[in-house]
């Protein structure tokens, strides 16, 4: 958008100012190519560099014939194209479900994207090794397709496979953590302990569902807007395409804090308090690109509520595959042995495209914290009898030298029960403080900050041991950066696949590559 007020009045200094350039490109001869391939994006670059050289999507406009330049035509810019297939499908490299998947088409799309990466961004004079991060659950035929493109079309001598969850953990500076990868078709939550994936669960509450809910919201608002602004435009086609919904999600999607969400659900939805709701004017119309629709800012947070937290859906209607994110995270933590659980709960790591939605990381941390506080870890064991939240809050504070019932139960199972129970007890101790009502203004600290302070205090008490037993969110640079770090550090112990061998016998018929 052209924005040319006088430069003298421009406000330029912001706390978000991006860094001055990069910390130097390091791609010497022996650095490898690092690739992270997901359903929506391919990231590629060199190990030792903080950022990938390219992030490539798979939109329909990239899938056209050579010589088809319609994507560059001015008329195309207003997105007259309507979606025809299932929501977002023509933006995917692959589906996790192999049924109805044309592997040849996956190969074609991937080959084209990689060719772009190699010819426009890598500009190599000779083939290099590849460190490849693909989802560990990727089906074998898809993995074979990826490898055959790398080996067959790009003459890659060796491909090293790396688990994204482990890389995300490493890119957070950690060795253990609960990695929540809020991706496209599904969210994968993996408990990583000492660089091992120890537990993994999925839910379809992820980007695809989220963008679709955003589309629904936009359509609804657009219709209302037209109804209000006169009968003339009522006939206007208010179909919201995937492109539109996806873009609005990336630019305007945000996530409420627990407190905001709670206060919102209390008040009647119809009587929206407009005075706090800044209207955001966005261009939606395809026919007249300069006409805009005004939507209250708070509405852009609603899709996250419905899609990721399943607000408005009664719990009994939820299947195993569409659990809301905090519940799923809690369930995994609950199923872990005590020691890894205490470590992991203090290391919630968020990654995936949707993790960038402002407010989401904080919210998830809050939600998981609340679940842990209210339910404890007893639900799964039922012995000794479950303590209800009310009971607990009434119970007197106990120091760790006076073990609670819950502690006893866990230490039974604990092989080397040195720390786990202690951590849990300390968490309980800290609860009343954490639950204190947070300040409501957006600019101030949210409750999570108190958690961090708590963690710090506890750390000092524990004398340099790892933080555990509290709920903390940790920032990660993501799987690509993790691969880049590991690639340049050149540490051993890896799953390597050599070109010669693969071309001869494929992946072989032995055990799965992921072990």
């Amino acid at each position, binding site marked *: 958008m*052209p*924005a040319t007020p006088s*430069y003298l009045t*421009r406000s*330029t200094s*912001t706390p*978000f*100012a991006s*860094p*001055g*350039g*990069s910390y130097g*490109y390091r*791609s010497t001869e022996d650095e490898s190519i690092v690739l992270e391939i997901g359903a929506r994006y391919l990231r590629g670059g060199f190990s030792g560099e*903080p950022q*990938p050289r390219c992030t*490539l*999507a798979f939109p*329909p406009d990239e*899938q*056209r014939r*050579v010589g088809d330049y*319609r994507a560059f035509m001015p008329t195309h810019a207003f997105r007259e194209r*309507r979606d*025809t297939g299932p929501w977002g499908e023509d933006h995917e490299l692959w589906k996790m479900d192999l049924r109805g998947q044309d592997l*040849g088409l996956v190969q074609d799309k991937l*080959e084209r994207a990689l060719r772009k990466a190699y*010819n426009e961004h890598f500009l190599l*004079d000779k083939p290099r090794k590849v460190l490849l991060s693909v989802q560990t659950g990727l089906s074998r*035929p898809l993995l074979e397709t990826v490898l055959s493109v790398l080996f*067959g*079309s790009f003459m890659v001598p060796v491909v090293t496979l790396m*688990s994204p969850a482990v890389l995300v953990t490493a890119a*957070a*500076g950690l*060795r253990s953590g609960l990695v929540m990868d809020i991706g496209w078709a599904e969210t994968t939550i993996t408990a990583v302990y*000492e660089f091992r994936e120890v537990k993994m669960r999925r839910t379809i509450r992820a980007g695809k569902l989220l963008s679709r809910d955003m589309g629904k919201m936009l359509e609804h608002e657009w219709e209302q807007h037209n109804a209000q602004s006169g009968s003339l435009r009522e006939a206007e086609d208010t*179909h919201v*395409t995937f492109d539109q919904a996806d873009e609005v999600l*990336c630019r305007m999607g945000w996530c409420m*804090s627990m407190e905001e969400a709670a206060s919102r659900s209390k008040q009647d939805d119809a009587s929206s308090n407009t005075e706090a709701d800044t209207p955001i004017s966005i261009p939606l119309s395809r026919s007249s690109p300069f006409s805009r629709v005004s939507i209250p800012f708070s509405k852009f947070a609603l899709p996250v509520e419905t899609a990721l937290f399943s607000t408005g*859906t009664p719990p009994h209607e939820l299947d195993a595959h569409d659990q809301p994110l905090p519940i799923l995270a809690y369930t995994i933590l609950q199923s872990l042995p005590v020691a890894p659980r205490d470590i992991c709960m203090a290391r919630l790591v*968020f990654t995936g495209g949707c993790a*960038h939605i*402002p*407010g989401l990381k*904080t919210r998830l941390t809050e939600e998981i914290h609340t679940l842990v506080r209210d339910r404890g870890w007893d639900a799964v064991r039922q012995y000794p009898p479950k303590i209800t939240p009310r009971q607990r809050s009434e119970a007197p504070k106990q120091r760790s030298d006076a073990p609670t019932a819950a502690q006893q139960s866990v230490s039974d199972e604990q092989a080397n029960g040195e720390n786990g129970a202690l951590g849990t007890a300390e968490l309980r101790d800290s609860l009343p403080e954490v639950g204190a009502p947070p300040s409501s203004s957006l*600019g101030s600290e949210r409750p*999570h*900050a108190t958690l*961090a302070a708590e963690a*710090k205090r506890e750390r000092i008490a524990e004398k*340099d041991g790892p933080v555990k037993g509290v709920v903390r*969110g940790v*920032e990660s640079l993501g799987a690509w950066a993790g691969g880049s*770090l590991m690639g340049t*550090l050149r540490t*051993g112990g*890896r799953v390597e696949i050599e070109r010669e061998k693969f071309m001869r016998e*494929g992946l072989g018929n032995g055990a799965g590559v992921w072990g």
Partner: protein
Amino acid sequence: MAQSFPYTYYSCPCYDASGAIPTSIAAKRASQLSAGSAQDDDEDEQTFDPQSSRANYSLFPIEHLLYCADCKQIRCPRCVTEEVLCWFCPSCQLEAGSSAVRGDGNRCQRNCLNCPVCIAPMQVSSLKPSVPNYQLSDEEARGSDGPWILQCLYCQWTSLDIGVHFEKISGIAKQLLDIKNGGELVPPQRERDKDRKLKIDLLDKRRHPDDYRPEERPKADEGKHLQADDAAPTEPVDFDEQYANLLAFYRSQLSREKSSNDHSRHSKYLSRLLSATGRARSNDTKARTMTEARNVDEGLTLVSSKFEALKIQRMKEGGWENTVDATQRLRQINPTVRFSSELRPLPTHLRTKRTKRCRQCRQILSRPENKVVSHRYKIKLLALNQIPRLSIRALAAPPLPFPGASLAPGITPFKYDSLSPFSTTQYLLTLTNPLFDPIKVTLATPSMTSGRIQSKITVLCPQFDVGANTDVWDEALGSGSARRGDAVAPGGPGAQAQAEAGKVWDKGRNWTSVILEVVPGRFVPKDDKTSAPEQDGGVDDDEDYLRSKGLREDEDVLEIPIFVRIEYETESTAVEDRERGTALSASLGNARGDSRGDAGKGKERREEAFWCVLGVGRIALG
């Protein structure tokens, strides 16, 4: 619209049977395919479907195709391998050395930058208003007319939008590396690295004083502030900074690992990092006491609710226009930027000149001249010199004197964009032979197009000969046939000549035209039961939600798949000589054309076959 009608695309056969896929996988895939759907027994004879999703990847305009003389095959961009000859900046046309290339991220380090908003090249302008349209001419001006800014001449974005200006006029891209948005200078990398190393060393000494000799141990209060292990960030996470911190942290861990022996508690925990299986030796308990990053300096950063809330606040206050769109974001060097104030001008991507080789036999197919400014090729084996060119136009369309010429006034052009359903339209299909030998052509099309709109296709004369591409003078001197197609008076070509089955329409020196009859079908929208999709908010109704019932994009385009087979006899050596300008090689054995029935010495029978797609127009709806 893709290409203006009418057009011809050529299919490269590599897409399904290249050497790219190991045979084991290819076989598996084939069996999956045939199990999945009822198909013709012989896959080679399967009709090419231009509407299939994969067709987009195997169809090319003939100008984009190369030809391997050894393999006797079309080579598309997918079935060649490439080697970089040189790197250059497309903007300043200067070559970049291969070592410089790697250090600079394959981007020009001079004054070539692109607008982060619209990607147009940016101009360096002086902030002093007295110098309009600054053009650098002499050394004096360099010093005196700064400061400088980058300015997009297309969308008016300037580097002042992000608070950045430059003191010198040279090496703008390099200068940009040292300036943050807002104008603050980045401390030199060496200083940052030194600073980081000091901190990490100190932390390590404080944590493991036993590993150090007494005189190396830190004094009591030295680095006490670092001991706080504070992972709560005091400012928003800077991606590159956190990366550098992590890298330094892991390096220090690895060096500890190396320097200490196996019995130390610093066992090889990092070496397990890369193991995808992550199978750790069960007795490896030492790793449990290993350190992880514990503060911001080491790369551990806690999620900050404060900075997330600030971001939301900014979104709310700045609105839509203050955020960047997906295209702009993905072009950025940091592809996670959100606000337009975070945009950075983009140093121009370098390009390469590349040699292309046949993937099968490594033969060089194309090699540009080394000089950056030159656009010529030392070698370029174009497919259009080896395989016949198919061109098509409506018979009723007034012929143009040359491609792209405009019609004389008063003559209505043929409306390729709205073919009327059920009315027979005749097209003139012309094959032009680039070879020096006459060819025998066999054409095959399906009688009906596939898909939801079924159009009928008939080639009136599917078998014919095309003359050799002899000297132009031969035609002028020789008899030459009547050129009916072009000779007819405008307005009524069909009236004078009747198309007859089995007869060619017209013929010239090295071209032959035949008639293709097309009866476009009609699209009948199905009255499906799901006309009112339930929008119940469930999670499984993807299939219905927001799904339009109409045509898919380009489903109304009438494209005809046509299988072209040519046969000819040639002198065994002649082709090679002409094509490569080298002495005859022993490659004849590889020739795909079999050499049966070569009665005459040195004569060889060759055969070539490929699929084409003819785009003859768009069918009118209704």
